[in-house]
């Protein structure tokens, strides 16, 4: 028992240092690498934020959402339109985009929230496509059709703080990702996170245990969509333009892969998954033709050999204990 405790403590100290080390690495990285890779890491950050947002819906609650890019599109277009037509600063639009995407999620998901598994999956695919096609068809003449909206400002707070180059954008996105991770870890360890996991494990038992299943599913959708809206806001201001083609079905599939590769409901897993999705194509640029082939093969191999993801979430000390027991059996 004491031995077990020691290992637990050591493990937590090791984890603490690992997190500090990674944080320092991320802070000094822009001074070491060139501007191109800083941009690559920026998009890694965007995917991480999107992965975290989908992880709430798919990972924590187990709802198949293949239209997540639709929420990001709402956030991005809210930012683009309000900024270019009314000149509202991007950073003020950050929470507004989140609220717009969240409200949209609440509106469209309320009537379909009782659907299960693949049925919900099909409806969300439809929803994502409807958003993209609506934007493509120049809704009310303000979305700019297939060309999208141009001339979006840099994020700024008055004239004091302007995010206007790659390095600043890098710090900006990773600051937001960092804050999001802290918030989500807190949420995971609260009764809300527990309720979400209960719904994923067994809906009827969750309902009988006193969890308002419908409310918590909707909450997951609204929070996930809100975060995707934040990602959309940052994405729009980075590219200075938005177009419907950035939010196609393939992108939603990539997000789905991020959560599956990393491990459902695991925050470090999502980070690894988004690194795989955003950095992998860069490393294999030389064999560009075979990229998708390798990627597909890697996915299949993953599903066979590590169906729980690269870094599945560990609960309590369960994993450790069973390891110790195995070691004990071998020794005895």
């Amino acid at each position: 028992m004491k031995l077990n405790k020691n290992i637990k403590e050591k493990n937590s100290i090791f984890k603490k240092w690992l997190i500090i080390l990674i944080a320092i690495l991320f802070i000094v990285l822009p001074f070491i690498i060139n501007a191109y890779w800083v941009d690559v890491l920026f998009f890694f950050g965007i995917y991480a934020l999107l992965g975290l947002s989908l992880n709430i819906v798919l990972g924590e609650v187990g709802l198949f959402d293949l239209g997540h890019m639709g929420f990001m599109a709402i956030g991005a277009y809210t930012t683009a339109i309000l900024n270019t037509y009314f000149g509202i600063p991007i950073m003020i639009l950050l929470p507004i985009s989140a609220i717009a995407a969240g409200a949209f999620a609440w509106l469209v998901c309320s009537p379909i929230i009782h659907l299960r598994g693949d049925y919900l999956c099909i409806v969300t695919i439809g929803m994502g496509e409807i958003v993209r096609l609506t934007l493509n068809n120049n809704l009310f003449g303000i979305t700019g059709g297939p060309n999208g909206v141009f001339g979006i400002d840099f994020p700024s707070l008055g004239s004091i703080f302007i995010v206007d180059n790659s390095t600043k954008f890098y710090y900006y996105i990773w600051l937001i990702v960092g804050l999001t991770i802290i918030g989500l870890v807190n949420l995971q360890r609260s009764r809300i996170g527990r309720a979400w996991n209960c719904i994923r494990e067994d809906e009827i038992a969750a309902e009988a245990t006193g969890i308002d299943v419908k409310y918590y599913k909707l909450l997951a959708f609204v929070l996930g969509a809100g975060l995707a809206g934040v990602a959309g806001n940052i994405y729009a201001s980075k590219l200075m333009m938005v177009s419907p083609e950035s939010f196609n079905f393939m992108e939603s599939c990539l997000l789905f892969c991020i959560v599956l590769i990393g491990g459902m409901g695991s925050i470090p897993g999502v980070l690894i998954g988004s690194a795989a999705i955003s950095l992998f194509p860069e490393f294999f640029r030389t064999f560009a033709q075979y990229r998708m082939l390798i990627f597909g093969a890697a996915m299949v191999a993953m599903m066979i050999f590590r169906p729980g993801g690269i870094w599945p979430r560990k609960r309590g000390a369960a994993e450790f204990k069973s390891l110790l027991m195995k070691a004990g059996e071998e020794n005895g």
Partner: protein
Amino acid sequence: MAKDNNSMETMIRTKQENEEINKINKVVFQTDKLTKKFGGLIAVNNFDLKVSQGQISSLIGPNGAGKTTVFNVVTGIYKADGGKVVFKGEDLAGKKPHQIIKKGIARTFQNIRLFSNMTCLENVMAGQHCRSREGTWSSVLQTPGQRKEELEIKKNAEDRLKQVGLWKYQDELAKNIAYGNQRMLEIGRALASNPDLLILDEPSSGLNDKESEDLIIFLKSLLKEDLTILLIEHDMNVVMGISHWVTVMDEGKKIAEGLPEDVYNNPQVIEAYLGKDEEEEE
């Protein structure tokens, strides 16, 4: 003809006793003409059930009699097609399961339904969901109030886990513990919501004799907590061993109720369980 008289007598006697018991014990929970239909099939037909405060009441009947359907209607998983479910003087009809557990009725399932990929402690902590109230933002920001509540939840869960004797498995995933322990964990999770009425659906199914005995002792010990228990059971030994009151159900209807010994000897009950003799029928 003689047989009819006999059954009439038992009916009258049980009625008197019912009245006697009602004089002593307050009826805390009852269903009144409860009806549930699945398409053309009437699963529960004008069913009356009474449960007295601080007692263990049992609902028995042959397979397919509609016992579990009654439980599912009572706990809000199915919607009743008619009749009332009254708990502490309040009609529960049309309420959702998560609202019903908040009123103080907790249940377990016939085929154990645990949150299998969560630890035993987390399972019991989840049971207190309806007794806690901190929201999303206070959880994201980890406000002092939220931390305090979380600590309380954890402490209560530890107590409940010790009560059902699973403390040593606190960090083990629920799917990894033995079947008998899983049953106890499910009861622990139900108890974590501090219910007034505990509904158990075949708690002894799949348990060996020793485990059943322990279960009986455990359930009796719960009565000291001012808890009322209603159980479905087909293991006659368990029913006779602990029940204060037995209701027998067949084909959706109540066919008898009374003290365990009386029900055990009731010819209608025997007929329902073993079937009628062919010759007698003619």
